[in-house]
């Protein structure tokens, strides 16, 4: 009997051992999803640009900005040069992604600057598409020019929406004044 009890632990002692093991296991595992401290998650998100940003129209009919980080925004204080870039259309990879420009190829756009206000004269016949197309075309002009003007402010205090752009179609159509966020909803 003595030797048996040696090889076979008494229930009490065995129970204590098992309970300890179980507790240890449970402690190791913990139950449920435990809160943690702050953990590192990798590199920060980038994507903000200081360079020039042009707005084109996607296949879904929405305005989409593409950056031209290689072109310093300070060189494009003149809205006419921005319009020229818009007339040139998207770059090849952007074209492949389905971006287009709605601006026609005739170069008779004109623009004047007065403080925080820009007036763009749109050639006749450019705003002859569907209302959505016309709106996107105006959005391309307003956002690209306003962004360029805002970035050109070296103080860094001018926001894109601080620039108000008046679109003046040649002919009978009534002019309208816009800010960029009107088109980005």
């Amino acid at each position, binding site marked *: 009997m003595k030797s*048996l009890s040696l090889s*076979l*632990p*008494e*229930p009490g002692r*065995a*129970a204590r051992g*098992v309970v300890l*093991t*179980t507790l240890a*296991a*449970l402690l*190791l*595992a*913990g*139950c*449920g*999803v*435990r*809160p*943690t*401290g*702050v*953990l*590192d*998650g*990798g*590199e*920060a*998100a*980038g*994507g*903000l*640009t*200081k*360079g020039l*940003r042009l707005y084109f129209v996607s296949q879904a009919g929405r305005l989409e*900005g*593409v*950056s031209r*980080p290689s072109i310093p925004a300070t060189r494009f204080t003149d809205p006419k040069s921005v319009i020229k870039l818009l007339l040139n259309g998207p770059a090849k990879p952007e074209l492949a992604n389905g971006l287009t420009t709605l601006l026609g190829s005739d170069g008779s756009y004109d623009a004047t600057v007065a403080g925080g206000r820009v007036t763009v004269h749109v050639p006749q016949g450019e705003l002859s598409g569907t209302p959505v197309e016309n709106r996107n075309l105006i959005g391309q002009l307003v956002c690209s020019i306003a*962004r360029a003007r*805002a*970035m050109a402010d070296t103080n*860094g*205090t001018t*926001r*894109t*929406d601080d620039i108000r752009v008046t679109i003046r179609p040649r002919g009978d159509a009534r002019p309208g004044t816009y800010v960029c*966020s009107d088109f*980005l*909803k």
Partner: protein
Amino acid sequence: MRVARRALRRLVGLRTRLVVAFVLIALASAVTATALAYRESRTAVLERKQDAVRTAFKNRVEQAAADFDVPADEVSLTRFATGVADGLGDDAVVVARYRSLTVSSDASADRSRITPALREAVRDHNRMSFQRVERDGRPYLVVGTPVTFDGASPSGLDAFAVTSLRAESEATAGVLEAVRDGIVPVVLLAAVLALLSAGTVLRPVRELGRATRRHAAGDLSSRVRVRGRDELADLARDFNETADALEASVAELREQDARAKRFVADVSHELRTPLAAMTMVATVLDEDADALPPDTAQAARTVSEETARLSRLVDDLMEMSRFDSGAAHLNLTPTDLAEAVSATLSLRGWTDRVRTELPHGVRALVDRRRVDVIVANLVGNALRHGAPPVTLTLATDPAGDWLTVEVADRGPGLPPETLAHVFDRFYKADSARTRSEGSGLGTAIALENARLHGGTIEAANGPEGGAVFTLRLPWRRPREEHA
């Protein structure tokens, strides 16, 4: 008491201990395995979710950042936050901070889930950070990142996403539930296995116990079956070997005992014939002693007395041998005990020396000669070693099952050490008096005679001093009284 102890032993016995041990081992392994599997699966599930959220969040932030310009106002910040939240699933809340400005994609959401520690980490290190938090018992994953310009220079814009981990929590809880449902069958299975293995261990143990008890009861021939090659089989083999040795020793002892008894019987028998001749010669010499010279007469009388003593001793030895060899038989006859006892006393001339109390009409089936031997021995001893008055009382017990004949004297009584040996063969209470009149076998023969009747003789000291010998015989009534 014995039964209760046995029941208790069964309760804390090997079987119970085995079952408990098995169940505990099963529980421990199940719980440990579960805990490990649970931890692994939970880690895997959470890491997958965290990675997915981080990747999606970063993509959305970078996509939304393309349309975002600093400095920002509340409108553009809100647009940024909702834009990021749109791609992160229904339950995600995105909070964007730009300098002192903080907006949320869901204005009603609880922003305290973004801990100060996380806010600080995002602000101070130019890296993405994340944290799991718990609010109202529900787990959430909060990811925060600063949004940098291309070229990794900081912009002052921080974005946070809060997503629920409820689905992951439930998925891992499912593991525990599955285990909880599975653990009962596992424990039952363990108990059944324990019972089976306890059976294989306990069956040989029980057999050993049974064999041991049979040995204790005197059956030395009982053996156990040796099964298998384990320790229990070794034990059974050892038991059998021990039993063999014991049986052989006992048989040898019995053989020796029987030889010794046979020798005594043979010797006594061989002595009878010469003794008969010697007795005859001694009797003749004794009768003629008066005619002999005084010295020769003295010698002749001594030879005659010693021859008579030797003759009695041989008779007693032969009587003892008959008891030992089982050759003694009862010759039961219907007897009036009062009359038989009286006859014993008068035959030996003791009637006047013994005060008797003999109720009449006590009739029983006894061996008259043997009762005579017993009574004569008891009374003779009382007269020889005790002091008068010697009393003899015949009585029947109230239930009518036993007859008792009590012989008491008023002598010094029996010393305690003598009481235990008074029925031993050749035991002399008084060692100085080696040549007493008895052969030394008287009380032993009386006891054997009582036993032959199914009775006993008890020796004790009376309450008022003196030895008391009590013969107890079962009362077998003669047939004619039953009829």
